[in-house]
């Protein structure tokens, strides 16, 4: 830990052993009570029965598969799967919360980072840059609930001949049958992801845009002198230079997507095969009062996120070393 010695603390300033802890104490207490203790407790609960009074092994039923003390994890991992044969496992996996998470990760991360990157580059060349950017960015300021209402209205499936939802109005005016966007599997998950992309592209765009602006003008000019067109400059100059930022944005988005709850909860409630990990956990905890199962799902979620937590700390260490 050579970095620790590179502290910014002025050497002349000395304080007693107690003073720093007085400054830290309130924060440490609050964080211990509301983050650290619950973390440990959650792991404990995930090995218990539904209200934490006995071991999870006691919830096993005769003649059914049982993982003993890991019973809640068995439930969390396999309850959504149809175990008849390989085919049914495969098809049920893709509408389970895990399958959906993979869809979310693939489509939403690609969508937000891709559109954000393209827009950041395009908008760099026009005069009304600030206005255009704040329009893309605006959904970040509103709640997922508000966004859910906005998009539920776009996806609205009319009951009679009238389509008051924008998307179905477009579809019917083109001569097709209206579509129940939010209940048709697997279309509905894709439709929810669109909402996510709408909300988070501004975030990616802003970070990527400022990275693009930090590229010295001379490099772009030099490339242009060599006869590079806009597209070549984009793929061969700008993208490689901002690659580290792209990686940061992608990891941030991956974490955000894995924790995602509100959009699904508001728009479909996790019905019609749209459950994600967070909504499923919510259902187990609050609708079914199955604390053991709910916390097991939460622990699984953290295990998925863990590599990114480690990456975060590594990057922090690197930054500190460079200070």
């Amino acid at each position, binding site marked *: 830990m050579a970095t620790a010695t590179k502290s910014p603390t002025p050497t002349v300033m000395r304080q007693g052993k107690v003073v720093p802890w007085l400054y*830290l104490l309130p924060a440490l207490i609050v*964080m211990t009570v509301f983050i650290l203790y619950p973390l440990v407790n959650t792991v404990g609960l995930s090995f218990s029965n539904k209200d934490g009074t006995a071991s999870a092994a006691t919830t096993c039923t005769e003649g059914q598969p049982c993982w003993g003390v890991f019973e809640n994890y068995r439930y969390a991992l396999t309850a959504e799967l149809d175990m008849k044969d390989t085919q049914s496992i495969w098809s049920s996996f893709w509408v389970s919360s895990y399958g959906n998470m993979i869809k979310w990760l693939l489509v939403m991360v690609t969508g937000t980072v891709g559109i954000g990157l393209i827009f950041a580059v395009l908008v760099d060349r026009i005069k009304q840059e600030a206005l255009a950017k704040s*329009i893309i960015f605006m959904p970040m*300021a509103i709640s997922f609930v508000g966004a859910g209402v906005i998009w539920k209205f776009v996806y609205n499936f009319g009951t009679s001949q009238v389509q008051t939802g924008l998307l179905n109005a477009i579809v019917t005016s083109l001569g097709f049958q209206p579509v129940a966007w939010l209940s048709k599997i697997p279309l509905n998950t894709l439709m929810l992801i669109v909402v996510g992309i709408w909300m988070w592209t501004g975030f990616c765009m802003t970070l990527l845009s400022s990275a693009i602006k930090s590229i010295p003008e001379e490099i772009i000019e030099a490339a242009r002198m060599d006869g590079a067109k806009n597209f070549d400059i984009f793929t061969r100059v700008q993208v490689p230079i901002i690659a580290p930022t792209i990686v*940061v944005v992608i990891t941030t988005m991956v974490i955000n997507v894995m924790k995602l709850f509100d959009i699904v909860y508001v728009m479909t409630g996790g019905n019609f095969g749209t459950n994600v990990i967070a909504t499923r956990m919510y259902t187990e905890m609050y609708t079914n009062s199955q604390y053991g199962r709910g916390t097991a799902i939460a622990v699984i979620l953290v295990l998925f996120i863990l590599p990114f937590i480690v990456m975060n700390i590594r990057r922090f260490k690197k930054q500190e070393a460079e200070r």
Partner: protein
Amino acid sequence: MNITGTIHPAAQKNPAKGRKLRNVGTTIGIVIILIVWLVPTIGLLVTSFRPVALINTTGWWTALDVNNGPASSQNLDPDATYGDKLKTRFTIDNYVDALTGYRGSGTYRQACASGTKPLGMNCDLSDLLNPRGMGRAFVNSLIVTIPSTILPIIIGLFAAYAFAWMDFKGRYVIFALLVGLQVVPIQMTLVPVLRMFAGMGINGTFPAVWLFHTGFGLPYAIYMLRNSMSSLPKELFESAYLDGAGHWQIFTKIVLPLTTPAIASLAIFQFLWVWNDLLVSLVFLGGQKPVMTYQISNMVTSLGAGWHLLTAAAFLSMLLPMIVFFALQKYFVRGMMSGAVKG
């Protein structure tokens, strides 16, 4: 999470942006993306001002076409001008009904004008605080948000100062742990805290939410404030120290004023985050002290409320964040740069 390592602050302001290319393809591409981004919100806004009969029978994009829809929502006077006709096709009733929580078959204003007061209402300003309405939910949201924004910042300032300018054992390790805590999903902590609050008997009260948001907001708050504080020049501290100032004076007289921009960014962030949060309010407050996001999600999931109430309520809930966002965008973006969004 910090990305300043890849962005040179000086390069962010680049006045010498020599060429602003005017390229037709670029412009078309941008305009298409902008339309896709704007239209859903415009649809919501337009719909929220339309009478319920029209919302259910015609699309919002036909709002300016005065001749469609059921006769009841039309001005049938043959001499009526376009402007007169248009007037009957827009209304603020949706907002009045949403604010007061009116759920009858007509509108709140009709019901009150007819003399028969709607159930549980007084037809005066006190109806704005009706527990079912968005007016009351707005107040509740404010009560939740303001302390939940101030508390983590105050506690965080002290801790950030210690991390930035004091020397103590374990400083680096604790701070690295804190960086990791930023990405812990909120779901991991809900159940134990809920049980703890149940033991204390404060479930369904405002302090429960304040405490939870404070705990969860702290890692990010400390991280961001500490980054801002440690970028102050070392000499400042040394000369103040040689002049006889202690940590307390340096903290209050020098560091706090110089950290104001970072505090502003953080405040906006935490404010928006708490204001827009659904999960925490859902779990700890539920229907006892409904906040705006809770009321709306309730209206969405229960079949009772129609689009006219839902669109108005949704727009009401966006009003404050939008104002904050457009007025203080500079700080918002800066805050985002110095740490990724949590959740």
